[in-house]
């Protein structure tokens, strides 16, 4: 069994067994970590594997949360349909913002996505269905397929874990397909990819939409977990947070975003009482990562591992 498969099996077992330790780790915290791990993995598809830095991914995450919240609360949709609705809307939003953003590259793309996400933020602030400053509260968790009651934290945990595995499988499949290879070639050398006959714009857009849709899926799931969709989810702080998770965990690595999400969320959990120190520590991690630690936790570990096997 290869190393990566061992990690997979270990993670799967750990994920399935986690509710047994609910006295040690709070299930809602774990579910939030899973949602953010999916969010960061989806973001990593764009930053790590296509080389596009979006600074506006909160728009997809947060807006999908509103859509799911509204669909489940006002229309009485079942949770899986609610998540599907959120994901679909995020994909459409990703198509609109993506087609604008990929008209420019590099830093401009980051600024454009940030600005477009701010537009989405103001729309959410002013629109009727989002509840403005209050957000959508008391979103029902509902019954999965109309059968399984999800109000219980353990059954909801397995539901969320299922969503995560599904989303993660899609990302893993995309990265290790010919499509993923072309994305990497665009990241490394776009003119050459174009000269080989690949329509780089189209591939970038597809990657953007895929990433946006999966980010939306994560946001939708999170709105069911916390029974809340709020402005915090569409705020640029969330966009920055997902960048940090990916950077800290290791961009362009398969497991990096999961490690990053766990670390950042854990940190926030323990610093939550300390007021603004969360922001300060987050900023400091950014600075340290960029200056000294650009491969991230998983990237550094992989490098050490490779060195030891090469000997």
């Amino acid at each position, binding site marked *: 069994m290869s190393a990566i498969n061992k990690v997979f099996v270990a993670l799967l077992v750990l994920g399935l067994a986690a509710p047994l330790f609910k006295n040690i780790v709070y299930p809602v915290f774990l579910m939030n970590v899973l949602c953010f791990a999916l969010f960061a993995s989806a973001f990593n598809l764009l930053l790590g594997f296509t080389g596009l830095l979006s*600074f506006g991914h909160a728009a997809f995450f947060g807006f999908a949360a509103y859509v799911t919240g509204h669909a489940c609360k006002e229309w009485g949709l079942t949770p899986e349909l609610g998540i599907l609705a959120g994901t679909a809307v995020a994909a459409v939003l990703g198509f609109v913002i993506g087609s604008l953003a990929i008209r420019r590259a590099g*830093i401009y793309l980051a600024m454009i996505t940030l600005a477009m996400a*701010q537009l989405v933020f103001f729309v959410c602030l002013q629109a009727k269905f989002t509840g403005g400053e209050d957000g959508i509260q008391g979103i029902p968790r509902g019954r999965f397929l109309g059968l399984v009651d999800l109000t219980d934290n353990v059954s909801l945990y397995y539901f969320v874990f299922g969503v995560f595995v599904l989303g993660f499988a899609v990302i893993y499949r995309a990265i290790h397909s010919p499509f993923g290879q072309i994305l990497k070639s665009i990241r490394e050398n776009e003119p050459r990819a174009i000269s080989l006959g690949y329509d780089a714009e189209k591939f970038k857009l597809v990657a953007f939409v895929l990433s946006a849709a999966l980010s939306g899926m994560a946001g939708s799931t999170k709105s069911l977990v916390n029974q809340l969709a709020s402005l915090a989810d569409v705020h640029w702080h969330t966009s920055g947070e997902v960048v940090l998770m990916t950077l800290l965990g290791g961009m362009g690595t398969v497991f990096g975003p999961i490690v990053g999400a766990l670390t950042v969320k854990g940190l926030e959990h323990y610093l939550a009482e300390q007021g603004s120190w969360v*922001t300060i520590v987050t900023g400091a991690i950014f*600075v340290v990562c960029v200056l000294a630690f650009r491969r991230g936790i998983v990237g550094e570990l992989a490098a050490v591992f490779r060195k030891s096997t090469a000997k």
Partner: protein
Amino acid sequence: MTEIFGISPQALLSQLLIGLVNGSFYAMLSLGLAVIFGLLNIINFAHGALYMMGAFGAWMGFTYLGLSYWLCLLLVPLAVGAFGIVIERTMLQWLYKLDHLYGLLLTFGLALIIEGLYRQAYGVSGQPYSTPELLRGATDIGFMMLPNYRAWVVVASVAVCALTWYVIERTKLGAYLRAATENPKLVQAFGVNVPFMVTLTYGFGVALAGFAGVLASPIIQINPLMGSNLIIIVFAVVVIGGMGSIMGAIVTGLALGVVEGLTRVFYPELSSTVVFIIMAIVLLVRPAGLFGREK
């Protein structure tokens, strides 16, 4: 009183003036961003935080040291500039050989740190700062009452922008700067100390943000979040104008402020988003920006 589209000229003119004042801040900040980007190839995400530091600097100078507004207008930009130079020497200079995105990420982290520290110290409620005596009140200019301080903001920022433009486009120092933007290696080979110039440029761009902060202090609520809310709009302004020209940054900033002011009169619901909508349209029609050059 006659009305234009059901709106009194008074309301229209006062919103136009507010737009022009906001535009002045957009212009100064996007100018600083453009100057820094030109030489350092870094988008300074911390620009908003440094602008906030400028405003707080004026407030702290008055509250703790009793310094007058005019003294702060001179000293605070220097202090913020010096702070910028420290950042450039200790952190940014290691990133020039890397992908430009790292500069954005590093300065984003810095912005979070600065914002967090101020929030920890002063909370999120605004601090008031009184207008200097010389500029209180309003002047009747026939068709409207012109608040003196707002007029001063527009005049001061246009003067600073014009001066910057003159130095960069018309002096020998500016010629070095433009040459180093095009080809730093060659300029260095001619015996110009390019790394030193880069440091000073960052310090200057940042000082401009500090200056804007001091100018803003009497007309806004000084709070730690004021910078980050503004910087995103300024990014959109930069995308609309394109980073190609100094003049472009100034003109786009002022113009978008005015457009925003007019939107507030005719369609208030859109006033917070109009800049982003314009950005989307510009990207569709002219992706390089109004004054930008396609690479």
